[in-house]
């Protein structure tokens, strides 16, 4: 574990060092590009400010992912069980992904106001698709021989779903959730910048005209750390929930 982190850690240090040297020795105005040490300083000095806005953004992200998971799993199950839904709704679902959320976000704010609702809508829209598609792939990808086995044991449709299809789809769903957390953070910032008076996205927008560039970067650091820890939490959950999947890699991890 520690050995695996050594390489990336060293590389990150080298890159940060190069950035530091460039920012300090290259004569770059610190309002244009603050050095990493300046950003670290801002992280500490502005910790109260950052924390307050982080709580807001984190809440939006977690709720948004929750909405996307519920809706996405629901949609996947409906698509899985009903050929009619699959034929009619699936093409629309795919087509909906061509809608540029960046452009729609301000319109949603116009419609839904400055509160939580447009944030959840935007995060939900972004995360819904990966969750639905991976869950559906998981459900449909069940070994046909296993379906046959459940038939010969007289399992009902529901029993086959609960005992075989759902657990078999879990690894795939968790991969979808990992994609979702990565994009959820982006979605939250996007939503806040489209119209909000709180949150890290809003803080970044405000910091720039105030020449608090280091603070804006500090907010970016917080957002990334949050996304990475969500991803890590899901990876841990994966190990606990689906120990049978990828166990060959798991053995020497």
């Amino acid at each position, binding site marked *: 574990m520690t050995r695996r982190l050594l390489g990336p850690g060293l590389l990150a240090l080298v890159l940060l060092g190069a950035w530091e040297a460039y920012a300090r020795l290259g004569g770059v105005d610190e309002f244009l590009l603050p050095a990493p040490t300046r950003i670290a300083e801002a992280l500490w000095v502005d910790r109260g400010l950052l924390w307050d806005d982080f709580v807001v953004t984190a809440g939006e992200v977690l709720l948004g992912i929750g909405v996307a998971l519920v809706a996405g799993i629901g949609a996947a199950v409906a698509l899985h069980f009903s050929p009619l839904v699959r034929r009619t709704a699936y093409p629309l679902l795919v087509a909906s992904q061509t809608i540029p959320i960046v452009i729609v976000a301000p319109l949603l704010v116009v419609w839904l106001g400055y509160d939580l609702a447009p944030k959840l809508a935007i995060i939900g829209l972004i995360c819904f698709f990966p969750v639905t598609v991976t869950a559906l792939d998981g459900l449909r990808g069940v*070994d046909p*021989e*296993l379906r*046959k*086995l*459940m*038939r*010969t*044991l*007289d*399992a009902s449709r529901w*029993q086959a779903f609960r*005992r*075989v299809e759902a*657990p078999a789809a879990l690894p795939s769903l968790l991969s979808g959730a990992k994609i979702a957390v990565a994009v959820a953070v982006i979605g939250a910032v996007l939503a806040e910048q489209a119209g909000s008076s709180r949150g890290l996205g809003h803080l970044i927008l405000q910091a720039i005209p105030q020449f608090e560039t280091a603070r804006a970067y500090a907010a970016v650091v917080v957002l990334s750390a949050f996304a990475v820890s969500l991803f890590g939490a899901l990876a841990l959950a994966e190990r606990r929930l*689906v*120990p*049978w999947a990828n*166990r060959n890699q798991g053995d020497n991890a």
Partner: protein
Amino acid sequence: MPAKGAPILDRQAPVGEPRAAAGGVLVDGVRRAFGDVVALDGMSLRVRRHEVVAVVGPSGCGKSTLLELVCGLQRPDSGRVEGEPAVLMPQRDLLLPWSSALDNAALPLRLRGVGRTEARERARPLFAQLGLEGFEGARPHELSGGMRQRVAFLRTLLSGKPLLALDEPFASLDALTRAQMQEWLAGALAREPRSVLLVTHDVEEAVVLADRVVVMSPRPGRAVGEIEVGLPRPRKRTDPAAVALRERALELLR
């Protein structure tokens, strides 16, 4: 080591479909094709109630297809398949990787609405009989191939259906364990008979376990010969009569 003891048959098992009056199963002039590949053509066979019929035949001659037809998992293109409700023990063990060995074996009980604790209690004694004690809580990937096959076998038995369709059930066992399992199955069937359709590539196994051995042709598969075994039980594979029957079956296969 297989021990004798608790009953393996599940008398409380509900029977889903109406039973054919005579029991057993009848396969009559069945044809089954997959696109251009004709798996079975003119296949006929009968398993009487509580009879053990072994099917031997070259690889790809439609043995697995035959069992799926008997279990109602496929329909014949033409011909007739009728008989008692049958359960398939597939060629691959197909254990659920997320369940323990005990829960895998108890799955058919759970599917019939038996509670978790009771289902486990009913499956547990069978683990000891098949030399699986101590592995109740193991996940399938922690078991050897032979152990997995035994768990799959228990699962098949616990389905409680009157006809067992076994697809090479002992194929992945080592010679010693296979002999023990055959002995155990023979004993279990002697105590509590069931109708059995047993596909095997092991002619010796067929002669030791079966009342009759049906020999199939290469694809498209059909029955080309039938041997009444009629030897007293328990049988020994080294018994000269058994050896002679084995030779006859091998002769038919050529």
